[in-house]
Structure formats: C-alpha cells, structure tokens
C-alpha cells in the first residue's frame, strides 16, 4: 500500500492524468492529484508539515501494528462494523430494496470518528501534543475531542460563530469533553472561515500540533488519508451486501460536501462499473436561492484551502459561502477526489432541496424510527425524489452518515405546523 492517491484507491478511474504530470517537480506537481483536482496550494510555511504528514502516513498506515490499533479502536471504541440494515418499510415506500449503512451508530453519532481516530493515531506517532481542527455541525469536533482524549492529546476546535449558535448541543458536548471551542468571527462565521482560521493557527504551531482535517479536503495528503481512513465504510458495505444479497449493490447513495462519507463508501466500488454511485449535495431552498450549496451545478473548479476542487465562487474567483440548513453540507468546495469522480462521470452528482430534506426526515422517522442528521437526509431525499432512476429489483445502499439528535430543534421548528 502506498501513499499516493492512486495507490490508495488502486483504480485507474482515480489515477487520472497523474502519471503524465508527475515528471517535473517544481513545474506543476502532480502530488495528490485526482485528475486535475487536488494538489497542495498552501503557504510555504505549511509545506514541511504536509510532507512530514505524508511521510508519516506512508510509514505507519500500511504497517500491521497501525492497522491493528486503528481497526481495534474502531471496533471496540467506535462500534464497528456498523450494521447494514435492510429498511423494509422505506423499501416499500420507494419501491426498491434499500439498505442503510448505519454510520449513525458509530460512537459520536456519525462517520466522523473513523477519520478522527486514524489521524489522532498518526499525530501521536508523529509526536504531536495537540490536535487542532474545525467543525460545522459539531460532529467532527466531537469525534476529534473523543479521539484526542483516548490518545492523551489536547484538542482545540475552531467553529464559526454562526455554527456555534445553531449547533449548541454539540458545542456543549465538546466543552464537556474538555476541548477548547474557539469561535471564528471572520468572514461569514461559518465552516470555510473556521478552516481558514485553523490553517492560520497551524502555520504557527505545526511542529507540535496536528491539523485533524475533518473531510476529504485540504492540501495533499489530507484528501488521500481521510479517504483511506473512511474507506472502512465501503469495505464493510462490500462484505455485508455480499453476505446478505450474494451480489454487489446496484447503487450507492451518499450525501456530502467535502465528500468524506461518500468517498469512504465509494472507494471499494470505483472499479465496479455496474455499481452506480450517487453523490447528493445541499440544494438549499432552490437553485436560485442564496443558500444553495449545489457546487456541481453552480460551481466551477477553483482553489481553496490548499486544493483545486469544484468550488462555489463568484465570477471574480471569490468563494461563495453556502447556507443550507444542514451545517455539515455548507463547505463551498467538493473534495478533489469527489470532484474528479463527478467530472469524469463515474459518480453522478445530484442535490436535494430543503423541503425535500425535511420531508425525508419525516418519512424516515415514521417508517423506520430513525431520526437522520439533516446531512444524511439529503441522501434519503434523493432516493425518495428520484425513484424513477431505480428499478424494482434494485438493491440500493444509502450511506446513513449520522443521527439527527443535533438537528431535532431545527427539524421540529420546520415541521411544527405539521406535527
């Protein structure tokens, strides 16, 4: 197992144009490229930290010892494998067979812990004493604090002031866990600003601190290593669906912005051309609304936070923050790998509007007794709203990325009139 994205994913689809471009260092590096996407666009100050991280990942991740500890913690602390649940009631509603990959049952309530434990273990091996990170919905911040505490690392979480206000419950959980929550008031006070602030902090303390990047975004090697840690999801889906159905699924559907839960679910299936892959973004109120986060519709390639990726931006190249109700989908960029996969056509990009999302929450609550995270509900809204894309006999896996406890207030407020 190598450290480059090609080696990680092991697929031609992802390797893209990499081979050709790698030749001349200093003249357009292909490091960490997925097609044209990715790269390492950071200030010189951070280059050493990123090469150190790349080295450490290459040195430790493939070892049996690292895998044993990583997989052991995911199992005994995290609760892996998470179930692949045949949602019979939901299946009846949509007219095809729906399985939910239950990342909501992972410790902390979402897929985020897979990555947090992996990176915290790396940080520990690199001799770091501190984790710094950013969070939007708070799910990643909580998982980082958990991983930090198990491994004896201090945790500091940058969070936009607007997100702090609307994800109060997770802020309290982080405080209880002893993490320092640092309010970010710059920009719009949302996730992208928190990432910027964490990068700034990292520039000043990268010798002793590790930036625990929360999704498959940022400069190389982050997209590669976050994807590697998250692909435990897809590996399990593969084994579980083979056990349950004796065959691969017809489609896998995942929500996302940075793309970590989607990449985690998709990676082991990239070479399986018969497995359709769907990526669902936040559509906001409508495609015209200023809270729309459908970057694959409204964005174009651009560079933010160290990587070239599909990006919501204005005509001048200034980044446009999005404002869907799902805090975790409000990152304006799509990670390099998901950007590449959607551009190449391997993954079909879609979106769900807020009203469809709330309806999906309601349907899932009532039919399956599960309150999905608003982010996750985008994937559910997609299968509810695009039944025509699936056949009666289809086996469809939805990556059920997180539970909605954090969103209960927002959901109830929205559904109030109806309840």
């Amino acid at each position, binding site marked *: 197992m190598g450290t480059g994205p090609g080696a990680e994913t092991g697929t031609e689809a992802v390797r893209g144009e990499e081979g050709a471009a790698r030749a*001349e*260092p*200093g*003249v*357009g*590096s292909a*490091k960490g490229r997925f097609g044209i996407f990715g*790269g*390492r*666009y*950071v*200030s*010189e*100050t951070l*280059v*050493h*930290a990123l090469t150190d991280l790349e080295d450490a990942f290459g040195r430790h991740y493939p070892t049996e010892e690292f895998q044993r500890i990583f997989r052991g913690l995911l199992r005994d602390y995290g609760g892996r494998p998470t179930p692949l649940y045949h949602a019979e009631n939901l299946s009846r509603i949509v007219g095809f067979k729906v399985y939910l990959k239950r990342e909501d049952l992972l410790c902390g309530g979402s897929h985020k812990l897979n990555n947090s434990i992996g990176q915290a273990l790396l940080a520990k091996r690199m001799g770091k004493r501190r984790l710094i990170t950013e969070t939007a919905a708070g799910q990643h911040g909580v998982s980082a604090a958990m991983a930090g505490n198990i491994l004896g690392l201090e945790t500091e979480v940058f969070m936009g002031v607007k997100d702090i206000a609307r994800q109060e419950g997770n802020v309290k959980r982080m405080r209880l866990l002893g993490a320092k929550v640092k309010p970010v008031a*710059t*920009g719009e006070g949302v996730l*992208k*600003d928190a990432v*910027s602030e964490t*990068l*700034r902090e990292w*520039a*000043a*303390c*990268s*010798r002793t601190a590790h930036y625990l990047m929360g999704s498959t975004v940022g400069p190389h090697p982050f997209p590669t290593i976050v994807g590697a840690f998250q692909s435990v999801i897809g590996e399990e889906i593969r084994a579980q669906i083979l056990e349950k159905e004796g065959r691969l699924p017809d489609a896998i559907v995942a929500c996302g912005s940075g793309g970590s839960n989607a990449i985690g679910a998709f990676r082991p299936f990239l070479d399986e051309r018969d497995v359709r892959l769907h990526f669902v973004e936040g559509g906001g109120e409508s495609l015209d609304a200023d809270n729309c986060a459908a970057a694959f519709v409204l964005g174009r*390639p*651009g*560079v*933010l*936070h*160290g990587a*070239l990726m599909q*990006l919501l*931006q204005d005509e*001048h*190249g*200034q*980044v446009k923050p999005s404002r869907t109700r799902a805090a975790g989908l409000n990152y304006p960029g799509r990670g390099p790998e998901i950007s590449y996969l959607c551009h190449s056509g391997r993954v079909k990009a879609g979106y769900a509007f807020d009203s469809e999302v709330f309806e999906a929450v309601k349907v899932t609550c009532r039919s399956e007794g599960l309150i999905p995270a608003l982010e996750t509900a985008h994937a559910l809204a997609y299968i509810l709203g695009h039944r025509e894309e699936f056949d009666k006999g289809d086996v469809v896996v939805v990556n059920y990325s997180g539970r909605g406890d954090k969103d209960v207030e927002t959901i109830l407020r929205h559904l109030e009139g109806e309840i």
Partner: protein
Amino acid sequence: MAHVYYGDPTEEFSAELIRTLAGSGVDIVEVGIPSSDPTADGPVFTAACERALKGGMTPRRCIEGIARLREGGLEAPIVVTSYYNVIYSTGVGRFMAEVRKAGAQAVISPDVPFEESGELIAAGRGEGIDVILQVTPTTDGARLGRIAGAARGFIYTINVEGVTGARDGMPESALELIKRLKALTETPIMVGFGISRREQVVGLVSAGADGVVTGSAIAEIYARRLDRPEETLGAISGFAKGIKAACAEGNAQRKVA
C-alpha cells in the same frame, strides 16, 4: 517594500496610501488583491480583505487601479499579490498578461508553494513577470537550494512560523535562514511577515537581508481611523521613513561587520 490590500477601506485611499508610501522611501509596492479566504494572513489583513470586498473591490478593479497608478507617475516597481484562486479563475496566462499591461513587475501567490508554481512561472516568463517564491525557516535544505535556484526578482523569506501580522520579537531562525540563503544565491532577499519595529529591521538587514516587507503594521495604523483614514497618512509616512532609516542602519552595520 510595503504591502497594501487594495480597496481597504476605499480605492481612493489605497491609491493615496501607495503614493504616500512610495514618497516615503518604500522601494517596492506590493499591491494585494483582496481575497475572500486569505489563509496566509493574520487578523489585520483578514479584516482588510473583508472591508475591501464589502466595498465592492474586485480583481479587475485592482488591476485597473495599478494601471492608473502607473499612468499617474508612480515609478516604484509593483508586485501584485493574489491568492491563487483569483489567478486560476481569471486564467493564469490572462492574469499575467493583464498584470503586465497594467505595469506591474512581479506576482506573488501566497498559497502557491514551489511545487505548484510551474504553470505560474511559465506564464509569467511569457509576459516578463517574475513570480516571487517564498521560503521560510521550515524550508528544508534541498528545497531551499532548488527554490533559490529558480527564484527570479527576489526571494521572499517569511520571517516567522505563522501568518501575516506585526509581532514584537523575531526568531533566531530568521537570521539563520538569511545566512543559509546568502550562501546559495545572489538573488536579493526581502524579509516579510511580522515586521513592525526598527530593531527587527536593523537586525535582519545587518544579517544580510536586502530589504523588508511591512504590511499589517501599516494597516494597523489606518485601521484605527477607518472613518477618515487619510488623516493617518502622515503617521504612515513617518513609519515608512523609520523603516527605511532602519534599513540603512542595518546596511551600515553589515558593512562594518
């Protein structure tokens, strides 16, 4: 050299500020295109960008502003600083052409490290624009050599581990870095990030730096009077002259040593 985010708080003020600086001993003017996500900048410049964008500043208007400054007789070399997405979004070749046409001499893109700089350098070469490369105390030996070899115009050495913003002290590693560079190249060395005090400048220049870059320190001065920033131009001119004098002092000390 002085770094100004163009359009903060207004275009008129920025133009006046640049002229004042050039008239107060600043040899090179660094004109920053405001960015929505200035990740290499500290709080002072981040706020400057936000104000400029709120005021409606765009990359195109920045470049037009540079052209007007040149037309207005500004003679100091101009370095255009822009985060990469604005350049990428414009198109690297077109950006270089526009910058050249406006009358600038060089470009800095603070989020493009050496490994990603190939396209930028190639396009710049086509237009006769130098792409300024940055190094820091954390840049390791092998890379430092390669960067020094590829550098055109001057080498921008980042003085601290961290983002832009005036600081009181100055790390030993900065002086160390200047010495390492001096041994590698003849290309001039400009030192930036965190510079605001006479002693820092004296120390850096006497250690071999060919100049320093001040930025946040200037924005800090006018940011105290955002309602009437022009009233701070006197103070800023004084500050620039002080830095200039400190450079001379450092130079003198170097020759003695």
